[in-house]
């Protein structure tokens, strides 16, 4: 008798949960639609205007931006290399700093919950303040050029990588950590021998991805005095040398595609 009641209650329960879940889904969908409409009104969105501008866009694209001015590629080469150097240094330094921070920030490896909270808050601030703002502050304190470009890339890398590294660390099988704890290993030994080997593939993959992000980001950072190809793009725009700009963008594209290719090869071998 009692069992029968339990079953009925259980069934009712699932129905309730289903209804509850459906309601929740509907609410989320309504919220998203509402926000979208609100944004569309706030930004004067008009599909008509977008389509009526297509002709003007193609004029601009095909008459002003294209074809790229190939003759400038020589002088842009220095700038693109500088971008690569900045991106690479930013990635290496950022990854090393993020490596340490992420061990402090991940629930599975942190020595103390308070340290975890502090590090998380710190990296969250770094991450959630846009690169442009960092660049502005950094320019004001360090002057201009590649130093600032590199510094803001390092900051961006630390913010991004600490988060993804910490997420990766939290997905690590805790059973393995327990196994090493059970042998009487010290904290550092558990990190180095138990956690780190599991962490390597994620560490490598995310760092390499970060290199790509850095190269792209440097096109923005250059615009506020960070040097590299971004400055070349900015200069090209200001002097209306749009064909030079499109050449620079093509060089960035080539650089991104080649890093993508190289990093996928490295990832394959390491994982």
């Amino acid at each position: 008798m009692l069992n029968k009641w339990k079953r009925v209650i259980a069934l009712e329960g699932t129905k309730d949960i289903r209804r509850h879940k459906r309601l929740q889904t509907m609410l989320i969908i309504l919220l998203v639609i509402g926000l979208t409409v609100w944004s569309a009104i706030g930004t004067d969105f008009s599909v008509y205007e977008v389509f009526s501008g297509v002709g003007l866009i193609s004029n601009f694209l095909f008459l002003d931006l294209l074809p790229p001015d190939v003759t400038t590629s020589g002088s842009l080469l220095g700038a693109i290399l500088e971008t690569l150097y900045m991106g690479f240094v930013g990635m290496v330094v950022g990854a090393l700093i993020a490596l340490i921070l992420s061990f402090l920030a991940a629930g599975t490896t942190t020595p103390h919950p308070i340290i975890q909270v502090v590090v998380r808050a710190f990296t969250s601030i770094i991450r959630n303040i846009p690169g442009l703002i960092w660049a502005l502050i950094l320019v004001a304190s360090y002057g201009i050029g590649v130093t600032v470009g590199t510094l803001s890339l390092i900051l961006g890398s630390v913010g991004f990588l600490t988060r993804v590294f910490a997420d990766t660390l939290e997905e690590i099988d805790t059973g393995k950590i327990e196994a090493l704890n059970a042998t009487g290993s010290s904290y550092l030994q558990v990190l180095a021998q138990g956690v780190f080997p599991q962490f390597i593939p994620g560490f490598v993959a995310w760092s390499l991805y970060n290199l790509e992000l850095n190269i792209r980001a440097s096109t923005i950072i250059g615009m506020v005095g960070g040097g590299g190809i971004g400055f070349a793009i900015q200069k090209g725009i200001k002097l209306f040398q749009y064909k030079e700009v499109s050449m620079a963008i093509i060089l960035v594209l080539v650089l991104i595609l080649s890093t993508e290719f190289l990093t996928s090869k490295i990832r394959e071998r390491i994982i």
Partner: protein
Amino acid sequence: MSELENPNENIYSLTKDEEEILKPKKDFFIKGVLIFGGLFFLFSLYELNIDYANLLEGTGAFFAMLIDMFPPNISEWAYVLPAAIESLQVAILGTVIAVVISLVLAFLAAENLAPSLWVSRIVKGFATLMRVIPTIIWALIFIVAVGLGPLPGVLAIAVHSLGMLIKVFAQSVEEMDEGKIEALKASGAGWIQIIAQAVIPTVLTALMSWTILRLEIDIGESTILGLVGAGGIGWELMRAMRSYDFNSALFITMVIFIMIFSVEMLSNRLKLKV
């Protein structure tokens, strides 16, 4: 199982030769990459020619400036908050448009769903190009079409996000278990039905977390657009910086931080739920 049944195995003791054979081959590729990476790092540092003295000095200035920014000046809130809302709207609408379009294109880009490998390659190449062109150039392109204001900002953000979302959505779809697609194919379901009933439910979580991550990025991006006349909080920030009103700049930065941070919190919440 086989060697368990070999009772003589324990008698075996490895000879030198066997030891040699068993020893793992040294992986020269990884060593090479590490050494090359290290050298390239040093070379890059050398080429960048960073002025370390300035680095030290600047760090002093950096902290002095940070301290100088305190306390935040909230007196301009009547301008800053509407501008922040406008930026938020630009980011939300841009992200939504990008999500909707990339939901279609991603299925053409995913190799396991694309009608042909070529379609997939072309869509992916297109996505890469959209990502590589900086948001600011997109903004310029759209300003030509629709004039100044938030609308070109929305479009620029949409296009730039599209580039990333197509790529990551397609990746999620490609990681999906092929069998589930096959199962619906085998029941006579069409392409669209397979996508709606098998693919989307399976990758929904991934799509949602990418979307939210993108929204975070887009709020940051929309701050840049203030410079090109798209309005919003980016212009307020430039105004403050150009007028040396660092206390207002701090307030504006805090507003931006809070916007992005709340989206991050929201995404953590959703991750727990799903």
